């Protein structure tokens, strides 16, 4: 029988702890746990539980990678049922309060590729029901500060993306659904106008990507399955529709490699689909169906925070297929 050495030309490492810099396929023996291990890759996308969010928050906003994220604003429901100024950072395990935002609100857009030291909060609404605002704020890691207003007073839900100094936010709700596309350069907002407006006016869509290459999934209206992609100057309707119709979901990733999750109706609110720039594929569902959550991270490591349903103070972490995973070798 061929040995590991015969096949790979190397011996299995004998280590007291798992190595930190490993390659997929690498094998070692952990002498502390007395287990043989291999660096494999996840076969399909799965969701695991993240740290409990400090409040019940729906219509909440977020930014940053899965293990260094920030969430801010929200409608506190169940509970007092009103907008909040709460902001928290996440380290991959637990949430820590930061200084609050200045204008309590929910349904804000976010430069979701931002960070714990460079976040951008875009417009939103200041009541449980109406009262849209155009107020924007930036977080620098220490304080939230007001910056130039968004061109329209609108609820933007999860329709913003990019980073604090190169942001994109599109469509929304101002009393009616709009198609407006706006960009931010770190100082000023620009409402681009035709031909940069979205093809379909909508709210409750979810956007990910950058200021020059983004994708928006769903929204109300037109139908809840529409997908539009942004190339930096125009939006185009994608031919593909996602498999499970829903609105107010979340997303993370790029315009050609993204994960789209959750949404309402709640019966469809655990659905998770990946997007490769051409088509959708169903992957592992969330444990808690929800909509109007904060969503950020990447297609391989996304974070879902709060939302409506049964998970207002819970978070879930997505690990996409193909992600590195240390596996214990067993016999059966």
């Amino acid at each position, binding site marked *: 029988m061929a040995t590991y050495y015969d096949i790979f030309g190397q011996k299995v490492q004998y280590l007291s702890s798992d190595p930190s810099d490993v390659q997929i396929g690498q094998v070692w023996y952990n002498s502390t746990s007395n287990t043989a291990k291999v660096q494999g890759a*996840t*076969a399909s996308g*799965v*969701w*695991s*539980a*993240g*740290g*409990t969010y400090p409040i019940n928050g*729906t*219509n909440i906003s977020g930014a940053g990678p899965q293990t260094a994220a920030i969430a801010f604003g929200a*409608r506190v*429901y*169940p509970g007092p*049922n009103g907008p909040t100024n709460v902001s928290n950072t996440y380290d*991959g*395990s*637990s949430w820590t309060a930061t200084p609050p935002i200045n204008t309590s609100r929910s*349904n804000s857009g976010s430069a979701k590729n931002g960070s714990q030291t460079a976040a951008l909060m875009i417009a939103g609404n200041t*009541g*449980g*029901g*109406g009262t849209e605002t155009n107020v924007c704020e930036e977080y620098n890691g220490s304080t939230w500060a007001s910056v130039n207003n968004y061109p329209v007073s609108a*609820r933007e*839900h999860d329709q913003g993306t990019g980073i604090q100094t190169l942001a994109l936010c599109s469509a929304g*709700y101002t009393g009616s659904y709009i198609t407006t596309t706006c960009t931010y350069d770190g100082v000023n907002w620009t409402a681009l106008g035709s031909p940069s407006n979205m093809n379909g006016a909508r*709210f*409750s869509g979810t956007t990910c990507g950058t200021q020059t290459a983004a994708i928006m999934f769903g929204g*109300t*209206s037109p139908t*809840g399955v529409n997908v539009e992609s942004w190339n930096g100057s125009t939006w185009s309707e994608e031919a593909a529709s996602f498999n499970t119709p829903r*609105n*107010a979901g979340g997303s993370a990733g790029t315009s050609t490699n993204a994960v789209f999750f959750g949404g*309402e*109706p*709640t*019966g469809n609110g*655990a659905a998770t689909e990946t997007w490769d720039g051409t088509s959708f594929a169903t992957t*592992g*569902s969330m*444990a*808690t*169906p929800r909509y*109007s959550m904060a969503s950020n991270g990447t297609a391989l490591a996304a974070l879902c925070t709060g939302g*409506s349903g*049964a*998970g207002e103070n*819970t*978070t879930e972490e997505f*690990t996409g297929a193909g992600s590195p*995973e240390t596996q214990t070798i067993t016999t059966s």
Partner: protein
Amino acid sequence: MAHKTYQYCVATNWGKGFITHNDAVKLEFRSFPGNVWRVNAHNQDANKWVAGVNGTHKTLSEAQAIVDAEVTQAQADWDALPADQKAPTAGFELISRPTDITLTE
């Protein structure tokens, strides 16, 4: 007797570690109002998970009763909201009226 696909328990989601990545790879999880959790039946990993989270096993009817009570209360809370804070149509951006949930095994 029909073969059960799922079992139910009541457990409080404490956050990180409640469902680990390894749990998620092996099992199918779904939460419902009232801290009711559905996991695979006839599965040693599922049984270990329920024990590990200090879950209390519930029969289908017991779990359904817990969910029903929670949904009924949530519907009453929603009904008491001001009209401008309710969703006039499905898919609107406000909070929708919680719908009845029917559990299955």
